[in-house]
């Protein structure tokens, strides 16, 4: 009976694994996408909400509401809004100016400058904060050279609100720049030429045409920086915690580290608060960038049209100065720390030592393992997300219509949650063995991989979704008339078109995940240490020099990866590498 039924079932389903998803009546893909969004975005959030409002699975919201309304939480919320808002404005100013100068003027040496800007973003935020801290410390050799050494015991001027805003603005500026470059590429050159024929000067074109056309991207970039600022942990942790200036992520971290698992309900309640604040930012971004016009077929993308003339060397120098401040000085400070034999010793040819590098690179197994782990976790997440993002972009843009906004908000949630919070959600979800399967992924690499996929999915989607929105649907319509399956459509039509955008996504995910700390800080276990974890641990154990050596080595790996890609650029599709503008 069963056998017969089985074979009958097989007969009705010939070899066509995607039949269930086949066009034109295919609901399969949207359902699949919605399910993934729920798994990676909704589930962690719901689990947190349950932990906050129903501890022990009994509805009891009083404690959570009290926590959300507490003085500490209100203060932290204000601090979060303040630092995220101001730093987003700063990032928009710095990143926006840089991207316009590189995108539309004839400034010299664009590629190395763009390369440097993007490289500076790949340095982990806590490393950037640490570097700026040592730069302004009373013993700083660089301040000493300039004759600006403050009295010993002078508080570091970077500690507190101002420092957080400054370092965060610098750190998120490249994020703005990349978003605007993508926007600039979608401006048709004919628009500029038309204006030039009317006799408009470069300034007028920028003010009257370019900025209005780019408005959605500008708003999107600013809100991206704002949301990134809300979720940032490393910078306020290093610059705010020592002076008790707490933002929501650092407050959550404190609650957790002071009360352990007993602090989970409080931390969960505060996490909901962060998600709400960040959710506001995301929704605002979606409203602002809602497309009104139709799609433009671009034959020729924007070319630089602004001849700087005599101002050219000054503008070039200005951009290099920005790089020196953003990348050069902190890196020198780090290098100084890594090369001195002990904290507070003046660096000289006599005192210089490579011992810290030898210690972390040759003598400690854990550091080498961390390099391998970070490479593996970041690489797998990048690969999976790049593939998934193609199907997601297609589904969101073409198949989800009104339902799309909801799915997008759900997907964005884990990116908006501070990493520490996402990690807690993952622990809550995976601590006990999985239902049905009976295995626990806690304390395995898979819990970190799950968290990375959840966290970086929105990042991976940005470029492919934007690219999909620019593409006319006629290829697909033609294919649909030919009756191809969904799988064939994705594989042979959508994937080749979106490949460059998906490669950018994979690249960004890899570079961001490689130095990631806040998610893995709580999820690692013996054998799955990541670079971020090792770095933080070294710093906390008083081994600042060793931490600096790890930070520099990790940055060198990133630099090498970026240089390799740059060498391969000719073989990659156009516009894949964000710094090749």
């Amino acid at each position: 009976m069963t056998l017969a039924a089985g074979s009958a079932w097989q007969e009705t389903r010939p070899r066509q694994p995607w039949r269930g998803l086949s066009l034109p009546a295919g609901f399969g893909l949207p359902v699949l996408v919605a399910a993934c969004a729920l798994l990676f975005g909704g589930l962690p959030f719901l689990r947190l909400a349950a932990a906050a409002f129903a501890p022990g699975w009994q509805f009891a919201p009083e404690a959570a509401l009290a926590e959300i309304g507490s003085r500490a939480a209100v203060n932290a919320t204000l601090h979060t809004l303040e630092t995220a808002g101001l730093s987003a404005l700063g990032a928009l100013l710095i990143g926006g100016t840089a991207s316009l100068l590189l995108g539309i003027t004839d400034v010299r040496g664009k590629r190395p400058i763009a390369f440097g800007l993007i490289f500076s973003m790949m340095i982990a935020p806590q490393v950037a904060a640490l570097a700026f801290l040592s730069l302004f410390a009373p013993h700083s050799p660089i301040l000493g050279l300039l004759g600006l050494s403050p009295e010993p015991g002078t508080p570091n001027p970077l500690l507190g609100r101002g420092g957080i805003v400054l370092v965060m603005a610098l750190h998120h500026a490249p994020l703005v720049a990349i978003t605007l470059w993508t926007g600039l590429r979608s401006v048709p050159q004919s628009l500029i030429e038309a204006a030039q024929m009317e006799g408009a000067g470069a300034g007028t074109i920028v003010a009257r045409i370019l900025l209005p056309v780019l408005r959605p991207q500008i708003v999107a970039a600013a809100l991206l920086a704002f949301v990134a600022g809300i979720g940032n942990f490393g910078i306020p942790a290093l610059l705010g915690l020592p002076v008790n200036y707490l933002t929501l992520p650092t407050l959550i971290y404190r609650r957790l580290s002071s009360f352990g698992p007993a602090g989970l309900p409080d931390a969960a309640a505060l996490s909901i608060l962060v998600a709400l604040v960040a959710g506001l930012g995301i929704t605002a971004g979606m409203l602002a960038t809602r497309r009104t016009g139709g799609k433009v077929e671009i034959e020729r993308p924007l070319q630089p049209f602004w001849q700087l003339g005599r101002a050219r060397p000054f503008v070039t120098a200005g951009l290099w100065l920005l790089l020196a401040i953003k990348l050069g000085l902190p890196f020198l400070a780090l290098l100084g720390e890594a090369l001195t034999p002990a904290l507070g010793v003046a660096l000289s040819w006599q005192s210089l030592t490579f011992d810290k590098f030898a210690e972390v690179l040759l003598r400690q197994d854990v550091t080498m393992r961390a390099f391998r782990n970070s490479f593996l976790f970041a690489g797998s997440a990048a690969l999976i997300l790049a593939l998934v993002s193609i199907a997601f972009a297609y589904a969101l843009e073409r198949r989800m219509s009104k339902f799309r906004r909801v799915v997008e908000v759900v997907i964005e949630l884990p990116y908006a949650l501070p990493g520490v919070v996402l990690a807690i959600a993952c622990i809550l979800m995976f601590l006990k063995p999985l239902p049905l399967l009976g295995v626990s992924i806690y304390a395995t690499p898979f819990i970190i991989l799950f968290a990375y996929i959840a966290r970086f999915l929105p990042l991976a989607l940005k470029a492919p979704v934007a690219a999909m929105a620019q593409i006319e649907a006629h290829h697909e319509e033609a294919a649909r008339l030919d009756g191809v399956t969904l799988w064939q459509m994705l594989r042979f039509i959508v994937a080749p078109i979106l490949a460059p955008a998906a490669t950018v996504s994979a690249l960004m995910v890899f570079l961001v995940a490689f130095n990631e700390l806040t998610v893995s800080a709580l999820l690692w276990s013996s054998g799955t240490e990541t670079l971020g974890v090792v770095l933080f641990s070294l710093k906390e154990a008083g081994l600042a020099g060793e931490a600096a050596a790890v930070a520099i080595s990790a940055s060198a790996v990133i630099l090498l990866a970026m240089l390799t890609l740059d060498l391969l650029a000719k073989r990659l599709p156009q516009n894949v590498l964000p710094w090749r503008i």
Partner: protein
Amino acid sequence: MRTKASIAFIAAALTLGSLPAVAAEGKLVLYTSQPNTDAQQTIDAFKAKYPKVEISFVRDGTPRVMAKLRAEFEAGAPQADLLLIADAVTMEGLKKEDRLLAHDKAETSAYPAGVHDPAKFWFATKLITTGIVYNTKAALKPTSWLDLTKPEAKNLLAMPSPLNSGAAMIHTITLTGTLPGGWSYYEALKANGALAAGANGDILRQVATGEKLYGMIVDFMPIREKAKGAPVEFVFPSEGVSAVSEPVAILKTTKNPEAAKAFVDFLLSKDGQALALKQGYVAAHPDVALPAGYPDRAAIKLMPFDAAKALADEAASRKRFSAIFE
């Protein structure tokens, strides 16, 4: 035949007698709060003796090691075989919860009574005291805990938070229990602009780089760093210092008790204790000399400390500390 067998037997017995641990093999996971370098050295030294044991470690501040372990208890899958963390109070707590494995055969006769757990659930490995560190550029050379409340130290003192460090937790409980006025001492520090955040490593960085001039800190960090040339000085204040013993214990859930016991034996052995000395710690073994930079063993005055009371009051102390400094 008979002689051959007995020779083999004697040979085996001899081998076992002289190298009791060759039998130990397999995997071990150590959760520890030792700085990475020290943890790696300890493991390397153990591996040199027991090459068949594959041992890896997880390092973090004691509170976070414990948070991780507690989460794993909850999941029913503790990953650690061994625990080597800052303080005995935490160990006592675990012992009460029946999480630890007694190592009855551990050889402790060389140690004075009261150093280790009499029931042999945990064993002290070294003595780490918390005193005062100052930057050599500082005008005031503190000699007493009360000096830190003076105007000269206003806004210039950093201390580790008990929320980040096991040693800092014991230190806070010891100071508030010993100094006249108890918690009002910490309130005075707060009024004097003291900052309490981070772990001992952060305090070392701040004082050595001159961002702050005074700090409360565990002894070995500034003493080691001073030997390398850092502009810091460590003081054992006149009232005495607080102390932790960095105990080691085997978890009941270990899958490899033989190797775990070998690790404990190694730490308690002369060799293990000599390694502690080499790393710059005061070894728990009374016959092992003190590292350079320390006063005489007898000259280090320890403040009294009631472990049972500390265990009972730990959560309250933590809340009280947060209320003052957050």
